């Protein structure tokens, strides 16, 4: 983990930061529309979306790559963060919905007369921001407390997290749950009173995503290089031995698990205003497994690799769905198989040893 503290590591990170922060806004806002260097709103949104995925991949790498916990339910935390932000965005629509009612369209459709109790305060941005952190964090804490306390690990843990996100998906699919059922939240108009569908707003959201990515990367780097990170890696490699050394592994795992969920929630909150929709399919088990493959493609336990994997896989997904939509699943399936069989250390494993952490 020393690369971050070398000159080259800092240089690489700095170059990445400049590329992320400067290039896209300049190309999107300053370069005139006719120029080949111009980025349309679509591309800015796509880039912002992929950066959110990269944040999720980092969160996943923390628990899987360093603590050895394969979660198949990280999509749930991502979606919960998204829903928390979505509630606020729905409130911001105000009277501009199809039915011109103070309630969201789907509630009018259900003939509800008032917001249910859990929608209280959601008109305040600060409250939504609080929910974005608290809801995934609390759920992860409670779930993790139960799971780690009774020493559920390995495949069992994976399957149970998958059941968790599956159950949540079913719950959110219900219209009566009060989160828009099948269709979820969409038709967002503005955030903090500022319209969403402007090039400037897209660049701002993109920049926030980039900041989140870099912030998460720095935090995760600091964390895994610390003593805490070393204990985590030790737990991954020989949990019983760590326990016999006197460490309470439950606390370590619980902390990194909850932190990872919170990071996912933040990524989800940044994701929703950029894609303009959140619905329960984000919680489908398939989505959560896909997160694992981003990390596996990039390389487990390498952080930068995980983010890179998310960018690569999602870039490929965008390319495939536009050019060869019917071959995307073949490609993704092959990716799963080939990476597990032949690239256990991911793309980062292909780099020369000294650079690859």
């Amino acid at each position: 983990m020393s690369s971050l503290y070398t000159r080259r590591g800092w240089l690489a990170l700095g170059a990445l930061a400049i590329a992320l922060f400067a290039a896209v806004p300049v190309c999107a806002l300053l370069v005139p529309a006719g120029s080949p260097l111009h980025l349309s709103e679509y591309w800015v949104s796509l880039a912002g979306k992929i950066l959110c995925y990269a944040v999720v991949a980092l969160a996943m790498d923390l628990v899987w790559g360093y603590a050895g916990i394969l979660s198949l339910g990280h999509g749930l935390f991502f979606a919960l963060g998204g829903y928390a932000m979505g509630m606020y965005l729905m409130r911001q629509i105000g009277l501009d919905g199809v039915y011109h009612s103070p309630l969201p369209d789907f509630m009018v459709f259900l003939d509800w007369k008032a917001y249910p109790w859990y929608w209280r305060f959601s008109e305040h941005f600060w409250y939504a921001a609080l929910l974005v952190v608290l809801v995934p964090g609390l759920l992860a804490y409670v779930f993790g407390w139960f799971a780690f306390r009774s020493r559920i690990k390995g495949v069992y843990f994976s399957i149970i997290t998958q059941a968790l996100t599956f159950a949540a998906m079913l719950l959110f699919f219900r219209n009566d749950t009060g989160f828009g059922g099948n269709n979820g939240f969409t038709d967002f108009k503005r955030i903090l009173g500022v319209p969403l569908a402007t090039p400037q707003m897209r660049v701002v959201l993109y920049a926030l995503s980039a900041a989140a990515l870099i912030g998460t990367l720095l935090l995760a780097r600091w964390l895994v290089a610390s003593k805490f990170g070393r204990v985590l890696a030790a737990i991954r490699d020989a949990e019983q031995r760590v326990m016999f050394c006197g460490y309470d592994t439950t606390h370590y795992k619980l902390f990194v698990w909850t932190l990872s969920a919170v990071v996912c929630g933040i990524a989800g909150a940044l994701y929703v205003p950029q894609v303009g929709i959140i619905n329960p399919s984000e919680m489908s088990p398939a989505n959560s497994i896909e997160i694992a493959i981003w990390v596996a493609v990039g390389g487990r336990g390498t952080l930068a690799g995980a983010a890179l994997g998310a960018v690569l896989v999602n870039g490929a997904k965008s390319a495939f769905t536009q050019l060869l939509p019917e071959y995307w699943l073949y490609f993704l399936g092959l990716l799963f198989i080939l990476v597990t069989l032949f690239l256990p250390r991911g793309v980062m494993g292909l780099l020369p040893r000294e650079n690859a952490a």
Partner: protein
Amino acid sequence: MRNLVATLLLALAAFAPPALALDAAVVHQLALGDTSEDKIAAINALLESGDEQAEPLLKALLAGSVQTSGERVLIVNGDSARDAVTGEKVSPLPTDASDVVLNNRVRGVLDAAVSALRLVSPERATRLKAARELADDPRAAALPVVEKALARETDPEVKGLLEIVAASVRLHAGGKAERIAAIRTLAASGNSKTETLLLPLLAKKPDGAWAEPDAEIRDAAQASLAAVRGHLAWGDRLGLLFAGLSLGSILMIAALGLAITYGLMGVINMAHGELMMLGAYATYVVQNLFRAWAPGAFEWYLAAAVPVAFAVAGVVGIVLERSVIRWLYGRPLETLLATWGISLMLIQAVRSMFGAQNVQVDNPSWMSGGVQAMANLVLPWNRIYIIAFAALVVAGIWLLLTRTRLGLFVRGVTQNRAMAGCVGVPTARIDTLAFGLGCGVAGLAGCALSQIGNVGPALGQGYIVDSFMVVVLGGVGQLAGTVYAGIGLGLVNKLLESWSGAVIAKIVVLVVIIVFIQKRPQGLFALKGRAVEA
């Protein structure tokens, strides 16, 4: 109405031996008569004649497919027609044919006449159906007709139904003793319609007075209502139990293959659901082949589909084991990801070959319909067969694992791979065969599912979480756990469903399993010893 009933009564009383052909004059009066009275008289005359030919004519009249051409009366069926009097074929239709138009009064008489004819039909099935229809809506019944039919009826089931129909009519007519007797008769019926018949007797008028002034009748109605409700509640309970058993057997058979691949071999096969889907599609292909090449044997296509589904899924499983999974033994998380990749490719392959839409798999006729177990409880044949099929598969797997050499080897490898290898068990080949077996059972599950649900590329994904839950709950490493967990989950799911709705029930079950795993991470029936410690 009274007139009509009287004539119908006459008609039934005078049931003469069937004449050879209908009386032409009567038929003319019916089709060409000027007034409604003429037509009603003709209908009654036809009933009185007791002619078997009368029924098709009256039915055709009701359906609006009787036409007249000059003096001829024709029963039209598509492009051809039949002379109603002589029965000779008339084709093509005469150009001047015009419809016989009925007004509502004549139509009402016709309705009653047709159902009266059906109540005395020589066919038991026809009488039963007519009686059931009347039992569902007794207000349409004319008491004298029902009583006459009752007097002639010999079949106990039809007779029971008719008695209830008669009682429902008598409920509001006749003397007090008669009404109480009718109410008591109704108590024996398990029909949900009886409830709505009895309830008005116990209602209060807006001014607070009883709708039924006689307290004795009210008491009798109260008692009968309780009895009927008891019947219905039992029907509901048994229905729930059956639904739970049915779901349980489906979960069990879906999880059984997983119990072999995961429970015995420790391989997380996320493509299990897709192998079920392959089994279902294999059934679909066999069905189409039978339809194209052996339509006569279509009823029995399932007999061929079962082994084909097993073989297709089993062979795919063996290929997967040889090519991918065997490199990943001992690395369960990697296996999970790789098999997920396989499942994605299988889904897309099926989509490319058969399209993204659901395909149509038809039940053979012996699987459609159901057994009427109680008045409000029908047990569908396909569900009954699937319960039996699941039991057979479980028994077969159990025999295979406990009574054959292959089973012995599989158990040996499960318990101690190194030692099994040392005594000469070809462990690699056993792995392949056992994995193929687990996948083949998935194919069987898919074949079963094709008979009760939609067959589409997403079939497997709907079951994968559930079947893993069954295996996790049942405990790794043995079949008994899977059986109990499958049936138990099915029952609990359906019981909760009746109380809270399907989605909440499913969520509650998942949460309960998650909590349960805290207490017993090894499942309900954990193997003792270190075999479990993977």
